[in-house]
C-alpha cells in the first residue's frame, strides 16, 4: 500500500454562517475556489423539477456588480477555468485561477451569493431556459440510451421520493418556470449559512480568511431553510422492476439499478468495495467472466458496476451491461446474475487487495488536482459537516472486510431489489436500414 498523503486544512465559520475551508498547496501557483450550496434536485417540489439546475445557469448571468457575460469573461481573461454543476444533493460553482487572481474569484462568488436578484431578468431566464432544454436534448433525448439514468431514478426510489425525478427535469416544468419562481428559489436557498466555500492552492490561510470576511462578510444569514421532502426509503425496492425500452440504438444494452444504503454510512463503504471487487477494472469478476472468458459484454468505458453516492435515505448501485453484437441480452443478463450472486458466497483476500489498490489510486487521482480537492472539501463539509473526511474517508473504505462485502451483497444484490432496463433496437430502425 502506498503512503497516503495527509492534506492540511482549516475550517472557519463566518458570523453569517458561511463555512470556509482553506488548504494550502504550494506545488504550483494556482488556486481553486469552490462553493457548494446545500440545494439540489432533491429539494425540488412537484411541478418544479429541473429548477435547481436551471437556476445554476442563471447564476452565470451577472449580479449586482458583475455584468452579464463577466463571470466567464473575467475568469477566462485571468487564465482560469470555471463551471457549475447540479446534482441530487447539491449545486456547486467553481473556479481555478492563477493564484494572484484569487480575490477576483472570491469577489465573483460573493457578488452572486448576495446580489443575484439585482441582475436577474426575464430575458436571462428565457435564454437560459432554451439553453437548458438544448442541454437535455443533447445529453439525453438525442443520445442513444440517453434515458437510462432518468428511468433508474424513477423506478429505483419510492413514489414521491425526492430522487425519483431527474436533475434535468421535464420540458413541461422548465417551460412553466417563471421569474417569480426563480426569485423565490434564490431567496429560499442561496445564503451564506447554506453554503460552504473551499479554497485550495498556493495561498496563505490567514489572508484567505481576511479576504473571505471582506467579500462575503456583508451578506446576511438567512437563518433557516425548508426541510427537503422526506427521503426515507425501505432498504429494498420489494420487487423486481423490469422494463423493455425500444430505442434508436444499434445494440441491446441492459442497465440494472439496485437500491443500496446511503453515502456516508459504513454500509455504503462496503458497497463501494463490493462494486470494485465485482465490477471495477479488467481484473474484476464480471470483466473476467463476461468479457475475457465468454464474449458476452462489450467492455464499457468505465466500470461494469459502480456505487452512486446519494445521501438522502438510499443510494444506487448500478450495472452497465452493453451486449455484444449477436448476444441475446437475456443470456448476458443471466450470466451477469450468476457472477453477481457469487460474491455473497465468498471474497478472497487477493480480490480485496486488488480492490483496495484500485480504490486508493482512484482516490489519489481524484484528489491530485487543487480543484478536485476543493470540491471534495466542500462536499464533505456540506453533506457531513466534516472536511476531515478528505483524509479519513479512504482509510474507512480500505478497512472494509470480506464479511462486510458478503453481507451487503446479500442485502443489496437481490432479485427483489433491482430495476432492470433492457434497451433494444427499435424494429423500425432495422426496416429503414433494409430499405
Amino acid at each position, binding site marked *: 500500500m*502506498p*503512503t497516503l498523503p495527509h492534506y492540511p486544512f482549516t475550517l472557519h465559520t463566518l458570523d453569517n454562517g458561511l463555512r470556509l475551508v482553506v488548504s494550502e498547496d504550494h506545488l*504550483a*501557483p*494556482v488556486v481553486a475556489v469552490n462553493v457548494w450550496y446545500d440545494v439540489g434536485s432533491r429539494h425540488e417540489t412537484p411541478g418544479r423539477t429541473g429548477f435547481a439546475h436551471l437556476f445554476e445557469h442563471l447564476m452565470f448571468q451577472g449580479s*449586482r*456588480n458583475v455584468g452579464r*457575460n463577466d463571470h*466567464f469573461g*473575467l475568469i*477566462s*481573461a*485571468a*487564465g*482560469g477555468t470555471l463551471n457549475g454543476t447540479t446534482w441530487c444533493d447539491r449545486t456547486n460553482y467553481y473556479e*481555478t485561477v*492563477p493564484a*494572484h487572481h484569487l480575490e477576483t474569484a472570491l*469577489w465573483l462568488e*460573493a*457578488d452572486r451569493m*448576495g*446580489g443575484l*436578484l439585482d441582475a436577474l431578468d426575464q430575458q436571462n431566464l428565457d435564454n437560459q*431556459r*432554451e*439553453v*437548458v432544454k*438544448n442541454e437535455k*436534448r*443533447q*445529453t439525453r433525448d*438525442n443520445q*442513444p440510451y440517453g434515458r437510462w439514468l432518468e428511468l433508474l431514478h424513477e423506478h429505483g426510489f419510492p413514489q414521491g421520493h425526492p430522487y425519483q425525478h431527474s436533475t434535468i427535469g421535464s420540458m413541461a416544468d422548465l417551460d412553466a418556470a417563471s421569474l417569480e419562481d426563480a*426569485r423565490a428559489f*434564490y*431567496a429560499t436557498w*442561496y445564503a451564506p449559512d447554506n453554503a460552504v466555500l473551499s479554497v485550495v492552492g498556493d495561498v496563505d490561510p490567514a489572508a484567505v480568511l481576511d479576504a473571505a470576511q471582506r467579500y462575503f462578510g*456583508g*451578506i*446576511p444569514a*438567512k437563518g433557516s431553510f425548508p426541510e427537503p421532502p422526506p427521503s426515507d426509503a425501505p432498504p429494498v425496492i420489494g420487487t423486481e422492476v423490469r422494463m423493455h425500452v425500444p430505442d434508436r440504438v*444499434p445494440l441491446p444494452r441492459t442497465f440494472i439499478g439496485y437500491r443500496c444504503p446511503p453515502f456516508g454510512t459504513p454500509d455504503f463503504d462496503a458497497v463501494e468495495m463490493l462494486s470494485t471487487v465485482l465490477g471495477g*477494472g*479488467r*481484473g474484476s469478476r464480471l470483466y473476467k467472466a463476461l468479457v475475457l472468458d465468454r464474449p458476452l459484454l462489450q467492455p464499457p468505458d468505465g466500470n461494469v458496476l459502480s456505487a452512486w453516492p446519494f445521501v438522502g435515505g438510499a443510494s444506487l448501485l448500478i450495472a452497465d451491461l*452493453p451486449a*455484444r*453484437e449477436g448476444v441475446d441480452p437475456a443470456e448476458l443478463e443471466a450470466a451477469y446474475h450468476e457472477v453477481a450472486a457469487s460474491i455473497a458466497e465468498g471474497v478472497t483476500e*487477493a480480490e480485496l487487495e*486488488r480492490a483496495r*489498490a*484500485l480504490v*486508493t*489510486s482512484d482516490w*489519489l*487521482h481524484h484528489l*491530485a*488536482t487543487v480543484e478536485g480537492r476543493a470540491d471534495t472539501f466542500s462536499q464533505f463539509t456540506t453533506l457531513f459537516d466534516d472536511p476531515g473526511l478528505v483524509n479519513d474517508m479512504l482509510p474507512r473504505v480500505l478497512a472494509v472486510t470480506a464479511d462486510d462485502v458478503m453481507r451487503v451483497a446479500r442485502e443489496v444484490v437481490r432479485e427483489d431489489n433491482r430495476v432492470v432496463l433492457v434497451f433494444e433496437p427499435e424494429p423500425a430502425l432495422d426496416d*429503414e436500414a433494409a430499405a
Partner: protein
Amino acid sequence: MSQASAARLVAERPVPTDPRPWSFPSFDRYDVAGSRVVAAHLPGKPLAVVSLVVDAGAIAEPRGKEGVALLLAATLAEGTRDRDAYSLAVAAERLGASWRADVDWESLRCGFEVPVGDVRAATELLAETVRDAALADDAIERVRSERLDDLSIDMSQPGARASMEFAKQLFAEDSRYSRPDGGVVDTVAGLTPDDVRAFHAGRVGPAGATLVVAGDLTDVDVRELGRIVFEGWSGAESSPVSTTATAHPAGSRVVLVDRPGSVQSMLYVGHEAPARRTPDYVAMTTMALALGGMFNSRLNYRLREDKGYTYGAFGGFDCRRDGGVFVARAAVQSEVTAPALTTLVNELTLMREAGLTADELEHARNYRAGIFPINFAGPGAVASGLGDLVVHGHPDDHFDRLRADILAVGLDAVNQAAADRLHTDRLLCVVVGDAASIGDELRATGIGSVEVVNDGG
C-alpha cells in the same frame, strides 16, 4: 426590499496581485540502451505516469488496414508470452495501476498511472506488455469484434457520425485522414491477426519508441526504468510516413446525413488546415480561441447566450504533424437548424473579413497563457505534454517559448491569420438531423448545394 439586496457587497473588482512565476516542469532526456527516455520530476505528487510513446499512429497504417493501430493498442493488454489477460490485469491492478492504450494520428501511447512507490514494478509490466505481447488469434478476433460494436455505437451518436462524415467528405479517398483514426467498419472488419502482428513487428520497437516518465522521481532510478524497457529489445526500425491529400472543392456545400426523428441537428462546419509546424500557428490558434475556443467566444456567445439555439458551440484547428482541419460545431434544436447554420457561417465570415478586436485578442492571449499552470498540474498532463514534444520534435523549451509567443502575438498577425486560414468561400457543412423536416430550409439558406446521405453512411 428583498433580503438578498440587503447584502453589503464590495462593488469594485479586485486588482490582481503580482503573478508568481511558472515554467513548464523541468525534465531530462536520457539515452538508454540506444533508445530515448524523457523524465520530469514533479515533487510531492503521490501518483506517477510511465508511458511509452511509439511511432505507430494511425498515419503509419498501410492502405486498407485503417484501424490496425488502435486494434493493436487494444489487444496489447490481452496477454503476454507468460501471462494471460486476466493475470496481467490483476498484476497491474494490485499495484493500483490502470492500463491505458490510445492511438492518435502520429503515435500509439500506452502505460500506467501508478502510486509512485510502484513505478518500477509498473514499468516492468509495461515492458512485458509491449515487448512480449502474445497477440494470439482468438484475442485479436475478439477485440476486433468489440471494435466493430464500438463503431456501430459511434455511428448512432450524432457527434461521432458527423465527425466521420466530415472527414470522408473533406479528404480525398486515398488520404488516411478521410477515415477516423480508429478506422471504419469496412476496414476493421477486414483486419486479420496477421495484420495486427505485422503492424506490431513493423512499427513497435526501440528505434521508434520513447519512454516518458512524470512524477516524484526522488527515489526513482530513471535510467533503470529505461533499461527495463529497452535493454535487449530488438524490434522494428520504423520509417517516416506521410499523409494528407485534401480534396479542395470549389464553393461551399451542405451534406445532410439523414437521422430520422432527431430532436437536434449536429452541425460540423469547416475545411482543411495547415500542419502544426506552420509559422502562423500561434496567430491562427489564438484567433480560433476567440472565435470558438472559450465560453465567451463569438460562436458560443452568438449561438448559445444570444440565440439559445444550443447548449454549446465550439470551433478550432486540429493541426497535425502533417496537415489538419478547422471545424466549428454545435448541436442545435431541430427547428432552428437553418438559422443556426446561417448564423454560424456568418460568424466565420465576419471573423475572416474583420478579424478580432484588440480587447478580444488580449482576452484570448491572457486566457491561453494563463491556463498553462492549471493545464500542466498533474503527472498525466505533463506526460502527455512530453509525448507531444517527442511526436512533433519540439525543442526542450517548447512550452515556455510557446507561452511567450502567445503573449507576444499582435493584432495584425492574428487578423492576417483569420484572413488566410478561414476559408468561408469553400466550407464543408455536415448536418446530422431529420432530413424530412430540415432539408428544404437548408436548401433555402443559399449556403451551397445540399446532398442528402443515408444515416448508415
